């Protein structure tokens, strides 16, 4: 019997028994990862709380966790928290939507057709070099002080990473894999559907997550430029009224929302990326 056949058999006999053990081992590993990731922030928070309680600081400028929690509870009870969160979420969602659609379309065109790329890419790269905040005055003049200019700013922020990521992903598809498609005589559309689309997906998801991160960054800039609601407004309000607890509460809300929305995108893409075999892919049994 050949060495190849032997290794096949060895693998298949090892397969059935391992599932139960792996599952409980996985649960332990997940718990361990969770505890480890929480150790630093929780530890710091508890330490500061104790320090303030012990009278080492009055905690006026750097409020201890209990006071931030209190602030949260008050905002929640007054219905303020949900109002601000919803306002910010809506802006990010709409801006992310527009930015993603535009970035994906233009990125795909530029990646797929070299003529389009030579036509639009130099201009877009030039525009990308402009710090997006610099658009604020122009957007306010063009689109007014209300929602449209805010959403536009967020969309611009989301657009560039998505555009770059989509174009780069298409350009870096392995020629060798494309040749497999050619050998099987895939037409333009079938080539896109069966080879290019799955091949670009991992990079594309990364670019969406990068775009979303920038979306959260720009929503603050947008809300700083004059808003009556939103987490960015809460930040400014806290500064002007000298309420650091409110500022920290808003920052925490940003952290939670950013993390959640990112996990949402990553989680939605995960079922399509189980095949990944890369440095960063989840560990598998060898």
């Amino acid at each position, binding site marked *: 019997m*050949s*060495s*190849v*056949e032997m*290794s*096949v058999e060895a693998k*298949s006999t090892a397969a059935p028994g391992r599932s139960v053990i792996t599952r409980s081992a996985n649960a332990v590993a997940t718990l361990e990862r969770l505890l480890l990731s929480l150790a630093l922030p929780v530890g710091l928070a508890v330490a500061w709380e104790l320090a303030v309680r012990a009278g080492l600081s009055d905690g006026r400028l750097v409020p201890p966790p209990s006071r931030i929690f209190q602030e949260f509870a008050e905002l929640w009870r007054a219905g303020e928290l949900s109002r601000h969160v919803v306002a910010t979420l809506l802006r990010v969602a709409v801006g992310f939507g527009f930015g993603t659609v535009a970035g994906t379309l233009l990125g795909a065109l530029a990646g797929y057709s070299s003529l389009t790329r030579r036509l639009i890419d130099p201009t877009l790269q030039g525009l990308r070099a402009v710090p997006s905040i610099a658009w604020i005055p122009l957007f306010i003049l063009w689109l007014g002080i209300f929602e449209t200019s805010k959403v536009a700013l967020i969309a611009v922020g989301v657009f560039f990473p998505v555009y770059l990521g989509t174009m780069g992903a298409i350009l870096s598809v392995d020629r*060798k*894999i494309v*040749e*497999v498609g*050619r*050998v*099987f*005589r895939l037409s333009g559309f*079938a080539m896109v559907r*069966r*080879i290019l689309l*799955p*091949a670009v*997906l991992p990079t594309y998801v990364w670019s969406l997550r990068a775009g979303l991160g920038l979306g959260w960054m720009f929503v603050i800039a947008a809300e700083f430029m004059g808003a009556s609601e939103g987490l960015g407004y809460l930040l400014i309000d806290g500064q002007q009224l000298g309420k650091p607890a409110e500022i920290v509460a808003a920052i925490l809300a940003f952290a939670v929302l950013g993390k959640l929305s990112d996990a949402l995108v990553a989680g939605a893409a995960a079922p399509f990326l*189980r*095949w*990944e*075999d890369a440095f960063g892919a989840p560990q*598998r049994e060898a």
Partner: protein
Amino acid sequence: MLALDHVGKTYPNGVRALEGVTLTVAPGEIVAIVGGSGCGKSTLLRAVSGLDRPTTGTVMLDGDAITAPHEKIGMVFQEPRLLPWLSVAHNVGFGLEDRPKPERNTRVKAQLDRVGLTEKAMVWPRELSGGQAQRVAIARAFVTRPAVLLLDEPFSALDAFTRVDLQDHLLDVWADTKPTLVIVTHDVDEAIVLADRVIVMRSRPGRLYEEIVTDLARPRDRQSAAFDFAKRRVLAALDRSLDRQVTNDGAETRTSAGAALWW
């Protein structure tokens, strides 16, 4: 019948990779192409596959001019080139997308069975060893029942044991439908185990140089005297193609040609 008529390829930078290649291969024949690196053997195979177009001459298959990939021509590359996002079974069935699902399933199942990887049908390609992955690539090429199958150094990335194993295996699967095989290799043993004819190429410009008929009885015994004799003839032809001194010392000839093939 596969017929090449004065096929030539000159790259835009003026390099003549291939010149005046005329060759006919009968249905069911196995032809091995060997030659030093840069002699144009892969260029030749790509021209036959329709992936690249020759600058002069024509490639004909049963009366059809080959100018683009053709449904009757399959290809196995040096790397398995499996699609990482498809299971092994879906990789094998990649070229059967236009067939009804029941037929596709039966044929994929039968072909996987043929390459001995039935129990790997649902795993991702990343979970396969190099030899297993190349067997899946072979199954993917055979499942569409091509009339001509081109293999571009298909086993050169594998270890010696797996390579011998896959050579036998290729012949085994080949016997099912007996397509024409054109196999590019730099392994003289491999050429003699597989081929009815071994064609030695010469470089600058790439052209056919010598042809050695290796019609030994199958299955071929790699240790037999006839095998060794055929091997010496191919190695001597290779030495001539590289303008090397052919000495009477068989061993020395062998090492020099072997080294030339690798470097």
